[in-house]
C-alpha cells in the first residue's frame, strides 16, 4: 500500500476500498453489452468510489453535453442537455482535462443558475477518453470539499474503464450489424442458387431428352438424321453453357463487378442485326416484327451487352405477345438514345411493372413464375452500368413497352 506524503482532506474513502470498488466496476463493465448497463454501473461506482453525495454520467452530443444518468441524494440534471461551452462537464471535455472545484460559486466556469436549485457546493469532473472525450463523469458534494489526488485518480481510472467499455459496446453493435448483413447475404445467395438450379433444368431437360431419344431409337436412325439430332443436342448443351454464363453475370452484377467493354458503334445497326436474327423465331410465333429507326446513332457502348439486353427483351416479347406485332424503335433524344421494344400481348399488372427488374424475393418469384428468370435484372444492371435507365410501361391486355434510355457515351469506360 502506498502512503502519500500529504492528503489535502481527511474525508477520502480508505484506499483498499477504492481498489475493491474499481475492481468490481471493471468486472461489471467488462460484461456490459449496451450503454444503459454501462451507465448504471458507472453512476453507482462513481459515487461509491469517493463517497460523494452525487455522481453523473455525461455523454458528448455534438455541441452539447447530455446528462444521461445520475445517482445522487437529490435530483441533479438527468435528461438535460447544455451547450458544452456553458457547463463544467463541457469544459472538461473541450479541454480534455479533469477539474476539481472546491466552491462552485467562486468559479466562473460553472453555470451558477443551473446549480442553485441543487445541493451542490463542490465538484470533481473527469473526461471519458482523454484523447478524444466521448463523455464525462462528475462527482458532487453538498459541502465544501476539495477532491483528493486519490479520489481523482480513482475517478480517472473509472473513466478509463468506461471508455473501454463504451468502445466494446460499439464494436459489439457493429458486429451484430455485420452478422445480420452476412445472414441476409447468405439467404439471398441460397435463394439465388435455388432459382439458378431451376433455370438450369430447362436446357438440361432438352439435352437429356435429345440424348435419351437417340438411345431409344439407335437401331432405326439413319446417319443424316443422327447428325441432325446430335447437333441439336450440342445446341442444347451450348444453351446450358450460355445460361450458366448468364447466371455468373447476374452474380457478378450483384456484387457490383459488371465490367463493360465499350467501343464506338452505330446503335441502329447493332439493333437492326439483333432484330433480323429474330426473324425466324418471330415468324414461328406468328409475330410481325418491325424495326424503325430514322438515322444512324453513333456512340460509345458495350455492343455485346446491349445486344444481350435487346435479345432478352425480344424473346420476352415473343413469349408474351404471340400472334401479335412486335415493334422495335431506336430514336435519338438530345444527348440520349432511346430503344423501345413493344409487344401487344397479355401485358403486366401495374403493381408488378417496377418489380420486374429485381433479382428475387417476391418480385423475382413473379418473373420466375412468368418464365422470365433473371434476364430483366441483368438487363437493368447492364443499362445502369452504361449510365442509363430501363423501365416498362404496361397494362393487362394492352401489351408492354420496354424503354431503354442510354447516354451517347457509356458512363463506365472499359
Amino acid at each position, binding site marked *: 500500500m502506498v502512503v502519500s506524503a500529504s492528503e489535502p482532506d481527511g474525508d477520502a474513502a480508505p484506499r483498499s476500498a477504492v481498489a475493491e470498488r474499481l475492481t468490481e466496476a471493471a468486472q461489471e463493465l467488462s460484461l456490459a453489452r449496451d450503454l444503459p448497463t454501462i451507465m448504471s454501473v458507472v453512476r453507482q461506482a462513481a459515487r461509491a468510489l469517493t463517497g460523494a453525495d452525487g455522481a453523473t454520467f455525461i455523454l458528448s452530443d455534438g455541441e452539447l453535453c447530455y446528462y444521461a444518468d445520475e445517482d445522487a441524494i437529490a435530483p441533479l440534471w438527468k435528461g438535460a442537455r447544455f451547450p458544452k461551452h456553458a457547463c463544467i462537464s463541457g469544459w472538461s471535455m473541450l479541454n480534455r482535462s479533469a477539474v476539481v472545484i472546491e466552491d462552485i460559486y467562486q468559479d466562473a466556469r460553472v453555470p451558477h443558475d443551473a446549480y442553485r436549485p441543487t445541493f451542490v457546493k463542490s465538484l470533481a469532473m473527469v473526461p471519458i477518453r482523454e484523447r478524444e472525450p466521448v463523455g464525462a463523469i462528475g462527482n458532487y458534494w453538498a459541502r465544501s470539499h476539495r477532491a483528493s489526488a486519490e479520489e481523482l485518480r480513482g475517478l480517472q481510472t473509472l473513466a478509463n474503464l468506461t471508455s473501454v467499455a463504451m468502445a466494446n459496446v460499439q464494436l459489439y453493435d457493429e458486429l451484430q450489424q455485420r452478422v445480420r448483413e452476412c445472414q441476409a447475404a447468405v439467404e439471398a445467395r441460397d435463394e439465388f442458387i435455388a432459382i439458378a438450379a431451376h433455370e438450369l*433444368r430447362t436446357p438440361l*431437360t432438352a439435352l437429356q431428352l435429345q440424348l435419351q431419344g437417340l438411345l431409344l431409337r439407335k437401331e432405326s436412325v439413319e446417319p443424316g438424321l443422327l447428325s441432325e439430332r446430335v447437333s*441439336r443436342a450440342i445446341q442444347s448443351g451450348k444453351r446450358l453453357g450460355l445460361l450458366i454464363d448468364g447466371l455468373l453475370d447476374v452474380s457478378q452484377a450483384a456484387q457490383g463487378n459488371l465490367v463493360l467493354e465499350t467501343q464506338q458503334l452505330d446503335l441502329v445497326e447493332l439493333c437492326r442485326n439483333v432484330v433480323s436474327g429474330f426473324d425466324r423465331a418471330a415468324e414461328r410465333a406468328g409475330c410481325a416484327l418491325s424495326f424503325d429507326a430514322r438515322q444512324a446513332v453513333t456512340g460509345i457502348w458495350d455492343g455485346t451487352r446491349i445486344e444481350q439486353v435487346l435479345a432478352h427483351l425480344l424473346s420476352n416479347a415473343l413469349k408474351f405477345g404471340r400472334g401479335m406485332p412486335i415493334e422495335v424503335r431506336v430514336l435519338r433524344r438530345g444527348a440520349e438514345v432511346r430503344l423501345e421494344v413493344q409487344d401487344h400481348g397479355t401485358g403486366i399488372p401495374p403493381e408488378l411493372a417496377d418489380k420486374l427488374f429485381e433479382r428475387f424475393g417476391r418480385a423475382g418469384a413473379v418473373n420466375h413464375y412468368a418464365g422470365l428468370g433473371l434476364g430483366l435484372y441483368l438487363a437493368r444492371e447492364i443499362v445502369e452500368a452504361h449510365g442509363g435507365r430501363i423501365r416498362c410501361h404496361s397494362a393487362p391486355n394492352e401489351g408492354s413497352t420496354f424503354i431503354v434510355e442510354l447516354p451517347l457515351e457509356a458512363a463506365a469506360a472499359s
Partner: protein
Amino acid sequence: MKVHLLIVEDDPDIADTLAELLESVGYDVSKAENGRAALEQLNKATTLPDLILLDLMMPVMDGWQFRAAQRADPRSADVPVLLLSAHVKAEQAAQELGARALLPKPVDVEALLRAIAEHSH
C-alpha cells in the same frame, strides 16, 4: 386408333424434342406453348386428347391456372394429366392439381413412357 397426347410446355426445345420422341414411338402429339393456348386447343378439338403432359411455369397462363380452368370445364375435366416440372414444390403441386403422376425435370424418358402407357387408354 393412336393415343393422342397434348404437350403443354413453353420451352420450344423441350416441347419439340418431346413431341418428336413420342411420335417416333407411335403416339399422336399436339403442342401448346402455355395454358391459354392449351385451353384454346381443347375448346376447338373435336376429340379431346387422351392425356395431357403439363408444365407448371409458363408465361401468359401457367400450369396451375390451366388445370383450374380444365377442371372447371365439364367437357375437358376428365382428361388425365401428367405433370412435367422442375419446380421445387412440384410434388405438392401434383397432389393439389390431381395429376396422375409427376415426372420431375430433367425427364426420365423410360419413366415417362411407362406413365403414359399406364394413364392413357
